[in-house]
């Protein structure tokens, strides 16, 4: 469903993403791991068509995202980092906008909004403006717009960041359930989350993919059998990177 080939992105002289290739097929939930600044968000922004890559190919559901992004974009649900939304709108008008802009009309649109509201437990704040909501509700509102059109592909940048333990649990359950018939890729810093939800994990460090396998496979590659130890063994902390640069 998502196919990324030799993707690179340079910001000035800095190579943020360096020759990354991977695929995500239907029924897979892929965890995208890596230290801060490794290029996770940049890769996701390129997949969703927000920023153009310096070189490489991206296709979503067989549609080329670089030459003709609109059909691909129609099939993607995207939850950007920090879950932005239009503050002055009510949850209802925001979700209605999200549904209409994706071509849902009339009864179909009404049902899509209703379903998203139920899935994300937004009934109690349905008529409130978004700037009056707590962080958890804002986050869920943005998540609701990502799934409102029942997309085949779901891209989420740190979907559980800033949620409380209950909300995290709900979000994980939801992602696992939706992963059964969608292609999902999400970034996270929480390694237990990967073990709990993902069918596969991709670890990226300084723009390059350093590991790609099921959580079990990756764990087995560490002596202690823990994902965290494996992660720390193959990625460099940003301080080490800085020391190396200075030297």
């Amino acid at each position: 469903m998502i196919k990324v080939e030799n993707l690179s992105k340079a910001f000035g002289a800095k190579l943020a993403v360096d020759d990354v290739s991977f695929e995500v097929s239907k029924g897979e939930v892929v965890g995208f791991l890596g230290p801060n600044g490794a290029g996770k968000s940049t890769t996701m922004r390129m997949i969703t068509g927000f920023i153009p890559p310096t070189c490489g190919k991206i296709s979503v559901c067989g549609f080329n995202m670089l030459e003709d992004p609109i059909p691909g974009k129609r099939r993607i649900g995207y939850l950007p980092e920090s879950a932005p939304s239009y503050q002055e709108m009510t949850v209802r008008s925001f979700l209605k906008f999200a549904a209409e802009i994706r071509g849902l009309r009339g009864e179909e649109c009404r049902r899509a909004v209703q379903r998203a509201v139920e899935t994300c437990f937004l009934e109690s704040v349905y008529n409130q403006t978004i700037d009056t909501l707590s962080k958890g509700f804002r986050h869920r509102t943005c998540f609701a717009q990502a799934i409102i059109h029942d997309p085949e592909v779901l891209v989420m940048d740190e979907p559980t960041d800033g949620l409380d333990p209950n909300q995290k649990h709900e979000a994980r359950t939801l992602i696992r359930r939706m992963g059964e018939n969608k292609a999902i890729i999400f970034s996270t810093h929480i390694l237990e989350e990967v073990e709990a939800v993902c069918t596969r994990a991709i670890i990226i460090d300084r723009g390059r993919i350093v590991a790609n396998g099921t959580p079990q496979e990756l764990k087995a590659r560490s002596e202690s059998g823990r994902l965290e130890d494996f992660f720390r063994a193959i990625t460099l902390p940003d301080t080490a990177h800085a020391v190396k640069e200075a030297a």
Partner: protein
Amino acid sequence: MSASAVIRIIARRELAAYFESPVAYVFLVIFLLLAGFFTFTFGGFFERGEASLGAFFAWMPWLFLLLVPAVGMRLWSDERRLGTIELLLTLPVTTWQAILGKFLASWLFLVIALALTFPVVITVNVLGDPDNGVIACGYVGSVLLAGAYLALSCMTSALARSQVVSFIIAVMLCLILILVGFNPVTDLLARWASPSVVESVAGFSVLTHFDGLQNGVIDTRDVLYFLSVIAFALFTTDVIIRSHRAG
């Protein structure tokens, strides 16, 4: 879904955003108060002793100078500051559709503001027997003038993340477009430049082209001038947004 449908949905959301915050009403009240003040006090509406809205339209380039950038300043800077631009541009819309949708919505808002000045039209019709064709022509000119200022504000708003910065640059640009055709300035220029130079410099001014329209002459060249300022500024907006995304 057709391009016009996408533009309509974006424009509707944008227009609703104006009215969901109190700023729109504050703007309308200030605009109407100032328009009335300029017409009846500064413009000497009664002292003129003629049944026309000359006093009303003559102030439009100056009145809009501060008010139109205030309407346009949030268009793109807010999207960037809040991160909603990432949401908007990963929806199945092209950059052009987003630019046009946002521009048309705020233009429509300014048209509504102009339409609310209808009491002056009634007043002049009750007091005398004005040429209503000239008045209609003045309104057409004002709408075009507002569009030109607005497109420039839209451009500066894509340039700066801060609304204040975008407002100040927009006011400066609009002021330049006024001053190059403002009599005191052209007189100064005429002292050392040849008349043809003075004339071509003044040809870039909104005053030069607004003059005919407010006096009831619809000249294709004047209309074309305003439309080309709009087209140029929106095209530049597209270039700016693209370059931000390319990083």
